[in-house]
């Protein structure tokens, strides 16, 4: 790269930066919208034009994690005083005054649903990536009879939109007792992601020179040891990229989560819209649920960012 740039290059460079900024702005608007709504008082969430300046509050989050039911009588002052601060907030709407029309407070299902999401997404990602990596290694390094056909078959499992088979899947799951179980969704998401994982990992493993393993084989290691000590560290980039993709798919999945679960193993995506409730929709609660739901993917991607920067440029790994 020369230090001196022509006028033309400077212009295109600035134009590119401007283009990126515009794109970034457009992409960040929904994120901003959700984030700001999650901290708005309910009455400001749906104003037209949208309220930009407001005093942020955490009542949407409190409402998200609690379940309130109406009481006929006002809450007694002593109950109010004895209650922790978050329950007091629900009793009085943050007004510090006991009102007559509030109710009893219990924990809502969101925490459990969020935990379900984490368990199911992490487990299925781990399974899809580890099985995908082993399969890809086999296809990459050994002569497999009908390799191309097998690879096409693996790819073909993604050709049908999964929702098409939702009803038969539901019936099968109910028959074998996998309906509304963690293991049921884990199997489902692993199956979704496996073909993708195999294809992606094969690309990455093909790029790792065989000589690395051969050197290890000659130096007294078994094939399995060579795989774990040499291939796996080299494939970390690909594994990270594949894991992010698989995690996002499993984390965001909505349709099957809605159909296959209803309570025990329900994940966050079908739960959040159910909070709209029967009366006037409280968008702040939805926004709060969505905001929290966005965080794990952001954190996961952030943690793996160094691997991803190299990993996204498929096959650009060279010593």
């Amino acid at each position, binding site marked *: 790269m020369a230090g001196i740039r022509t006028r033309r290059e400077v212009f295109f460079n600035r134009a590119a930066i401007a283009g990126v900024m515009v794109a970034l702005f457009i992409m960040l608007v929904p994120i901003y919208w959700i984030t700001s709504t999650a901290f708005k008082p309910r009455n400001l969430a749906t104003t037209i034009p949208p309220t930009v300046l407001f005093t942020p509050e955490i009542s949407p989050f409190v409402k998200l994690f609690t379940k309130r039911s109406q009481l006929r009588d006002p809450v007694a002052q002593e109950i109010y005083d004895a209650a922790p601060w978050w329950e007091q907030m629900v009793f009085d709407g943050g007004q510090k005054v006991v009102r007559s029309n509030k109710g009893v407070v219990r924990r809502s299902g969101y925490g459990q649903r969020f935990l379900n999401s984490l368990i199911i997404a992490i487990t299925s990602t781990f399974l899809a990536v580890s099985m995908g990596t082993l399969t890809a290694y086999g296809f990459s390094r050994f002569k497999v009879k009908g390799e191309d056909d097998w690879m096409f078959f693996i790819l073909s499992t993604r050709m049908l939109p999964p929702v098409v088979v939702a009803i038969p899947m539901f019936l099968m799951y109910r028959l074998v007792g996998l309906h509304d179980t963690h293991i049921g969704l884990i199997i489902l998401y692993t199956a979704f992601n496996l073909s993708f994982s195999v294809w992606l990992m094969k690309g990455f493993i093909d790029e790792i*020179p065989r*000589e*690395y393993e*051969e*050197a*290890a*084989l*000659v*130096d*007294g*290691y*078994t094939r399995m*040891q060579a795989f774990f*000590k*040499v291939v796996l*560290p*080299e494939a970390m980039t690909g594994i990270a990229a594949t894991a992010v993709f698989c995690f996002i798919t499993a984390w965001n999945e909505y349709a099957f989560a809605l159909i296959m679960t209803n309570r025990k193993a329900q994940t966050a995506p079908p739960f959040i819209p159910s909070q709209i409730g029967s009366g006037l929709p409280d968008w702040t609660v939805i926004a709060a649920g969505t905001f929290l739901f966005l965080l794990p993917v952001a954190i996961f991607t952030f943690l793996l960012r160094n691997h991803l920067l190299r990993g996204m440029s498929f096959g650009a790994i060279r*010593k």
Partner: protein
Amino acid sequence: MAQIELKNVQKFFGPVQVIKDMDLTINDGEFVVMLGQSGCGKTTTLRAIAGLETVTSGEIFIDGVAVHEKKAADRDIAFVFQSFSLYPHMNVYENIAFPLRAVGMSNAERDKAVKEVAEILQITALLDRRPSALAGGDMQRVAIGRALVRRPKALLMDEPIGALDAKLREEMRSEIKRLHISRGSTSVYVTHDQIEAMSLADRIVIMHDGLLQQIGAPDEVYLKPANLFVAEFVGSPVMNVADVVLAASGGQIQVRLGHGDAGFHFPAGLTNHLKETGADIALGIRPEAVSLQHDAKDGYIPVETTNIEPLGSHDIVDIKLGDISLRARTESGFVSGEGQQVWVNIDPAQAHFFDRSSGLALRGQS
């Protein structure tokens, strides 16, 4: 250290036979170079010895023990790859220590062995660097260090310096030779570079199309090529090869090249054995055995120069003789330009005759 023995080894890749009837014994402490063009089967042979490739049939012995059905890990040999193949996620120290970890050596012993090898290869200062931060020559030193640290029975090298630039190659070549002399390890070295082969080898194994062509010491291969392939493959610039016609003229034999009437005089003794073979005969003569003169002289044939390659220490001069071209090695500046008239002769003692159809060398009793 050990003796390596290949007995009737065959290797097929699908329908293609890449090693044909290979019989080869590499003695304890010997440095053997396998020389040939790419695709001749030399690397496959090396990988078969290492256990990275199975053989279709035949046997391989290391130290008298049949190993052809053993895994690479159990053969106790070391392999140096052309690509160095240093593990990028480990530093130099870890790379060299890696083979020792497989055998479960104690930490102190391992540390000692790594440092000792690093000392010999002068890479002590680089031990905590990553391979990506090394220059090509140092990478190869580390790769050799990794191979030597375990004190294997044999050291196999697959074009280990092929990826380096010319100057570094020369340096590493003498370093490999020095290491071999000091350690005395049985070494098998694969290359397509005949200069590497000549300078390093105790014996050279020349392969072509999966077949052994000749096994011999460097000077033997150079001075007595077993066939046309070896004759043309070894030596730079390449040996002149031309069809010849033999004609008797007064007690001497005239060797005529290029369908001309003029011929070089050979003593009858040197060509007696050629009479019995009814085959077409080709003459091979190295450029240094072709002598040029400015003036007419007995036995010399007048020719014209067509091209001159000045190489500093000497020139390579192309001359036209009948309808063929011969290359001669002269002192530099001997011929000033193209189209010059010179007189040429060849040294009968350095002439090689080959059977054109079989390619085999035709040698007398002497």
